[in-house]
């Protein structure tokens, strides 16, 4: 399948470029938008972004590999980010991640993001989500689940199936 960015999205990105005196500044916003649309940042998306912003592909690729939010492979439809940093850890985030991973038949000992074979879920530990007062917290796609319990986990899982 050839890579193609819908005209409407391209127009939005062209408008974004005008927010900056230097086009290169728009790179992160391009990558966010492309990842939102395609689900991940493919090598084609990197090349396309570089072309639009007058950069070498490596200038864009080095962002994709640095910033934790950018993904080079497709992820699950429901993306679960469990905060593992101190306040959430004190409130039991380790058990939450374990709960997700075990219910989904993933490997609890594996590091990094794991996606189920059916492509429905991705589960990972992430660093501080800046909601320590309502620990433990979990992000489910764009939404924050505060004071997350095992019952909340099960609700998230049943909604995503």
């Amino acid at each position, binding site marked *: 399948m050839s890579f193609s960015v819908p005209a409407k999205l391209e127009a939005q990105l062209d408008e974004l470029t005008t927010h900056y005196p230097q086009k*290169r*500044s728009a790179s992160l916003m391009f990558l966010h938008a492309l990842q939102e649309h395609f689900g991940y940042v493919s090598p084609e998306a990197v090349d396309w972004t570089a072309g639009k912003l007058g950069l070498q592909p490596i200038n864009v690729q080095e962002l994709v590999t640095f910033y934790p939010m950018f993904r080079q492979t497709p992820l699950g439809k429901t993306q679960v980010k469990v905060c593992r940093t101190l306040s959430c850890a004190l409130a039991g985030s380790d058990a939450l991640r374990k709960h997700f991973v075990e219910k989904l038949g993933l490997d609890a000992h594996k590091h990094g993001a794991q996606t189920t074979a059916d492509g429905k879920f991705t589960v990972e530990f992430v660093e*501080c989500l800046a909601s320590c007062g309502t620990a433990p917290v979990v992000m489910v796609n764009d939404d924050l689940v505060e004071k997350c319990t095992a019952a909340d986990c099960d609700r998230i899982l049943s909604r995503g199936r």
Partner: protein
Amino acid sequence: MPQEHRLILKHADQPGYTPDIECYIRHGGYEALRKALATPGRDLPDGKKMSSREVIRDEVLKSGLRGRGGAGFSAGLKWSFVDRRSGKPIYLICNADESEPGTFKDRQILHKDPHQLVEGMIISCWANDVKLAYIYIRGEMPHGARLLNKALDEARAKGFLGKNILGSGADLEIHVHRGAGAYICGEETGLIESLEGKRPYPRIKPPYFPAVLGLYMCPTIVNNVETLCHVRHIVNMGGAEYAKLGTPNNTGTRIISLSGDVRKPGYFEVEVGKVTLGEVIYNESFGGGLKPGRTLKAIIPGGSSSKVLKAGEKFKLRKKGADGQMVAVDTDLLDLPYDFDSLQQAGTMSGSGAVIVMDDTREIVDVLANVSEFYAHESCGQCTPCREGALWMSKALHRMTTGGGRSQDADYLLHIAQNIQGRTICAFGEAAAWPVLSFVKKFKDDFVARGKADEEARAKGMIPTAHH
């Protein structure tokens, strides 16, 4: 009983208060902007004249406002360093990349009262001749970014933003820029690199002080969300009046984020220095104390990079005595006023205002292992001592939490941490080293005991040694 003093969060949690502009205006919003734009210039005794913009900058200086992001540097001084003669545009960036573990104060403002930030920014931009500004919001706050974009659209429609703001002749555009999950973007020069579309490798200072060589090598102001909100209140109250809030050199209010082992975690806005660390944790108006039957073990007082405080510690605080002379006063940990200077005198910092409490059920080695893993993950990798050292410390601590401890690990950790601090381009090196230095020094027995126990267990063959 000490209470909250809500200035920034005055309306945020009131029932029916919404983040739209009409609600904000109904609650007195954008009046400070009108007041700022109408501020007359000032004649000085030496015959010189202060422009109305200079008057606002002077009020901010007089207010004593100190940055709420972590360093606690005078906001007015920071503004005074801006190179205004370069002929280059001056930029302002709001640092909304809230990521210091333990901190969740900016989140409240961004999601519940975004116009307060926008108004604070417009005033700050106007006072500093800024025509283009950015809000760098962390990537994990997508709703916050949407709310800010909506707020900016609303402000534009009302003539508070864009060309010729409220007929003043001043132009300003503000854009929202999203980060993508990297803690180092909270460091102001790393943030600038990121906003330029690069990896956020912090710049070396000198020469790259943002006030002179910032965004696109132009003079740039980087201020925290809460700091910019205070500007609105300084304009409303006047700098001298604002300075009456809080305590000398620690003026105004600030939002404390409280988390960990307390009964009521949450955020509390208090006058700086009017509440002690003990009150933050134990008072019913705030944390409400520890869970039943628990005792205090340790407090991280200003975000996870601040040095830990151990229960029972005592400090000598310099205070002005009755005769005006400075005297050293013995102060218990829990009696430390929660302000910039007292915590600094206690050898740590109030940082981003994030207090994390640990009770006696916590294993200190495990806590530090968690903290160190964060810094190992977030090191940008530019400087070798930090890139390698943060990872070594994290690996050693991970080993200690999985049965591979050694009695010499405590000294090994100190040795690595001492070789990171002061040897890196940015303060992340200290942020990674300080938790290790403070935890291991203050709780050395815990680390040595864990190492010895593991050694004995291995000697008895209880733990396999192969993977160590």
